[in-house]
């Protein structure tokens, strides 16, 4: 009886969305600690989780300070991705001619490794914020364009006819139909984009910066300060997760019909 009650409450707790991944994380960290112990891995290869936690506690002020430029570069690159990606997606979805010229080149440009371009950006724009923002942009813009094109093209042809039969002008059909129709798709692109923008910012910091989490990563690996390096990785992951979560929050406010559609309340005629 007691065992059964325990199982039920455990399942109820498992229903909280954050609990399952948290549980998995605890298991992974435990396995990590166990593996370091059992296989006797030296600390300069893989530090113990406890060492990482210690490094985080000791250096939290530095880490937090260095997280600021990385976050700013990420946000800058992301904002640029949105500002360029969404209008570009509108153009591609709206015109076959533009699509035939631009889309193949865009896909081609995606196969050029951004990591290889990053040093070039430093040569052009020097050390500092701009090259970081640009690498974040280069990584972040593609998913927005792809999801945007898909979203803008998802308008039902009958809906298009309907709006045209009301003699809607371009702006009206965009505001009343095309944009809201594209929003769910755009938001899924934004979520991918923001995590990639974090990667882009760090890549930018790798090749030419004297601040930011990417810089901390490089310095600590140069000095064999593995716990610091792992702590920096955790910070980096946190930046990504928080930004992702923020976009999901905005999505819930801007696209409420998408979330509410999951709740199946159908009336009968």
């Amino acid at each position, binding site marked *: 009886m007691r065992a059964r009650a325990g199982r039920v409450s455990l399942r109820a707790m498992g229903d909280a969305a954050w609990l399952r991944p948290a549980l998995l994380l605890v298991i992974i960290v435990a396995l990590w600690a166990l593996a370091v112990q059992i296989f006797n891995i030296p600390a300069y290869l893989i530090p113990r989780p406890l060492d990482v936690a210690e490094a985080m506690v000791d250096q939290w002020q530095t880490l937090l300070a260095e997280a600021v430029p990385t976050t700013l570069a990420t946000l800058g690159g992301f904002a640029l991705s949105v500002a360029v990606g969404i209008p570009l997606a509108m153009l591609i979805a709206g015109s076959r001619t533009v699509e035939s010229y631009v889309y193949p080149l865009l896909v081609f440009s995606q196969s050029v490794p951004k990591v290889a371009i990053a040093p070039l950006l430093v040569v052009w724009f020097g050390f500092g914020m701009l090259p970081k923002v640009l690498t974040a942009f280069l990584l972040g813009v593609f998913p927005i364009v792809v999801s945007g094109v898909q979203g803008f093209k998802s308008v*039902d042809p*009958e*809906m298009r*006819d*309907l*709006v*045209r*039969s*009301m*003699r*809607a002008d371009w702006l*009206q059909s965009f505001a*009343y*139909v095309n944009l*809201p129709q594209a929003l769910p798709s755009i938001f899924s692109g934004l979520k991918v984009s923001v995590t990639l923008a974090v990667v882009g910012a760090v890549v930018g910091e790798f090749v030419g910066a004297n601040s930011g989490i990417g810089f901390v990563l490089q310095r600590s690996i140069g000095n064999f300060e593995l716990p610091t390096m792992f702590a920096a990785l955790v910070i980096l992951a946190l930046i990504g997760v928080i930004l992702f979560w923020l976009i999901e929050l905005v999505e819930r406010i801007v*696209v*409420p*019909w998408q979330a*509410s*559609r999951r709740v199946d*309340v*159908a*009336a*009968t*005629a």
Partner: protein
Amino acid sequence: MRIATSRVAETGPAAAGPVPIPPVAAPLIGIRDLSKTYRTKAGETPTLSSVSLDVRAGEFVAVVGPSGCGKSTLMKLVAGLIPATSGEISIEGRPVREPPDDVGIVFQSPVLLAWRSVLGNVMLPVDVRRLDRARYRERALQLLETAGLKGFETRYPWQLSGGMQQRAAICRALVHDPAILLMDEPFGALDAMTREHMNVELQRIHGATGKTILFITHSIPEAVFLADRVVVMSPRPGRIEAVYDVELPRPRDLEMMGERGFIALVKRIRGHFAAIGALD
């Protein structure tokens, strides 16, 4: 406002038009020698071939035909959504070159906007046409009430059943009070019971409002039940094969579908398709 002026302005060109003898009552919709050929990379697809049809004001005309006979093309042409290859369509004597103001359209799918409430969806034509919101809101609410959607105004489309969604779509087509209602297989996606119910409903709307309705369907009983005239179309390229007057008394109820006159007419119309092997 715009609707009223367009009605007054039309009489002139109709009299001066190419039709030599004006009919007793000038047709509201005049279709002359209408042809449509789609040109694609794969070649030319003749879809409609010299279709001529007059629809009088207040008349309910149903068009039946096998799939691919150009029924939907005919409707898009009348709605001014696509240009004709040759021939002419006029509404109130004025040639259709762009979507006319005096027309409401219902498609097979309700195409409601998921982010607008039921009332918001019905009000969409008012917003797009920049009409007086306050005045038309009253009308929209009234339409929803007669459509049995009272209490659902603030709900969202996904909270409604298919039949209710289609009723909301009909309200949307009627909200700006157009003289003509174009319906392209509006009940094709509904289950049989809901469909019959909607047929009765539409007949009531037709009787109460006196709208002119051009109704595309592939259901012969539905066409006979609803229409004053049934236009039979042949497979591609679509031509008018025959036109039947339905002289069954109104209002018609579902019981009538079992009566001899009804069955005989359905059978005769079905004969057209059996002969060319195009149906079932």
